[in-house]
């Protein structure tokens, strides 16, 4: 028996070890990360950091001395090659570590284009880690041509940064519209306009066939035969949960590492949290890719590793910064059957998703009030009349649950 080991030194891993110490866990604690740097925030990578507006030192979740000061053995740049759940040991960097409890916070892995269509050519990037950004940042030079594959939030954020820096940006999306998987047509309309107004060429229903180039990419060939010249390419077509290690350990995997409501995997000594884990939600299971979830889930798991017995209840929220627009999303819109648009002042807008009569989610564009009111209503398990939301004379604050400020 020798303490707790946490594999994966991202936001979830950092939150987990900090909370373990916070609740008084005094045993051995090891945090293992594959990247050579201490845990850092990922959201700014595709925003301020990519743009060059943020010093790398400010990305770190905790100061560098935090881990040593708190008796946390931080092992960076090391891969765990093997977990033996029967022996409760794992192999890392030539060592065999024993654990009493293990937590997996391995995050997610960006999908790449297959090599046979040019995915491994030089100048083709994905956006996930600090090293990805540091490698692509020198490409962001005024006048160069960037092709973005994928019209999700990562692609749109990169388009905004690139355009602001004076690049010529084309974004292609295979689905009929951008944000198809994650947002309503109304929200997609808002962002399409925002980007085209800034000079981005947005091509929807546009499939990539393959990339052209010898060592480096120089163009993309579309499914309809058209060719788009590009100096470099960013692929933003989603992520997959990092489950390889869990699978080799024989853990149950179901859209991520399967966990129960406490965050425990199919092995009673192993836990999982954040992007890599799926968990029970209403009548089914879900997996979330967001920093808010990574923090909350990891903190909940930390509590449960010391025996608190706390059921995890997700309170999904997200945000995105593009140009001068801040998008804030409260809740999850899956299963919506009605969308209500509300125009605010000064170009702000919000999109409210209902399922049956229940408010499921709100996308708020430069409208923090809509976001916060929606968030409070959803988290209180309450709803609101769609016609009140639609009515521009309604003061949103009157719709907030009365428990505000005292919940």
């Amino acid at each position, binding site marked *: 028996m020798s303490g707790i080991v946490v594999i994966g030194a991202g936001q979830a891993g950092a939150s987990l070890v900090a909370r373990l110490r916070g609740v008084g866990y005094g045993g051995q604690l090891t945090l293992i990360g594959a990247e050579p740097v201490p845990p850092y925030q990922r959201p*700014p990578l595709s925003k301020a950091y990519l743009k060059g507006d943020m010093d790398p030192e400010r990305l770190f979740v905790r100061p560098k001395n935090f881990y040593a000061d708190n008796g946390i053995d931080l092992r960076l740049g090391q891969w765990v090659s093997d977990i033996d759940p029967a022996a409760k040991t794992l192999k890392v960097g030539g060592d065999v570590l024993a654990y009493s409890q293990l937590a997996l916070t391995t995050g997610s892995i960006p999908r790449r284009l297959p090599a046979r269509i040019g995915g491994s050519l030089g100048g083709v990037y994905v956006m996930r880690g600090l090293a990805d950004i540091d490698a692509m940042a020198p490409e962001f030079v005024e006048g160069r041509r960037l092709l973005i594959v994928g019209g999700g939030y990562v692609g749109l954020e990169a388009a905004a940064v690139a355009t602001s820096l004076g690049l010529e940006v084309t974004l292609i999306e295979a689905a009929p519209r951008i944000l198809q998987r994650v947002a309503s047509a109304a929200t997609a309309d808002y962002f399409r306009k925002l980007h085209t107004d800034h000079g981005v060429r947005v091509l929807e229903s546009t499939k990539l066939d393959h990339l052209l180039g010898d060592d480096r990419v120089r163009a993309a060939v579309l499914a309809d035969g058209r060719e788009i010249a590009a100096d470099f390419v960013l692929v933003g077509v989603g992520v997959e949960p990092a489950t390889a290690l869990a699978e080799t350990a024989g853990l149950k995997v179901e859209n991520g590492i399967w966990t129960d409501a406490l965050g425990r995997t199919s092995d009673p000594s192993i836990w999982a949290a954040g992007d890599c884990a799926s968990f029970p939600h209403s009548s089914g299971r879900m997996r979330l890719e967001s920093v808010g979830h990574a923090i909350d889930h990891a903190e909940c798991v930390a509590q449960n590793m010391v025996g608190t017995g706390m059921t995890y209840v997700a309170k999904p929220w997200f*945000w995105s910064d593009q140009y001068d627009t*801040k998008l804030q999303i409260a809740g999850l819109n899956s299963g919506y059957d009605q969308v209500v648009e509300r125009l605010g002042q000064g170009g702000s807008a919000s999109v409210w998703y209902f399922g049956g009569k229940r408010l499921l989610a709100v996308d708020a564009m430069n409208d923090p009030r809509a976001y*916060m009111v929606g968030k409070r209503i959803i988290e209180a398990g309450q709803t609101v009349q769609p016609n009140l939301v639609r009515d521009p004379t309604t003061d949103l604050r009157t719709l907030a649950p009365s428990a505000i400020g005292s*919940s």
Partner: protein
Amino acid sequence: MPKITYIEHGGKEHVVEVTAGLTVMEGARDNGIPGIEADCGGACACSTCHVYVDPAWMDLLPAKEPMEEDMLDFAYAPDPLRSRLTCQIKVTDALDGLVVQMPEKQI
């Protein structure tokens, strides 16, 4: 380096030096001071770095942007005269001696 005093809801005081140019939120984070969560990392996208600023200091702070104002309306127990989001306050030499107090909780 400007000194900032962070007072936890329970009354525990932390007096730390924060490099000018960082935010008051980053000063708390980098010194391991509990009570300021800053889930969004300083993007003014959540309201979990809310504090009450000693009224004597309010006028010396940069003015609130509308975004911060609206977010604060829905923070935990906001006080229109004293509430600020610490991610929006950049530390300068003029803020040497600033005192901020954490709310009971962050939501």
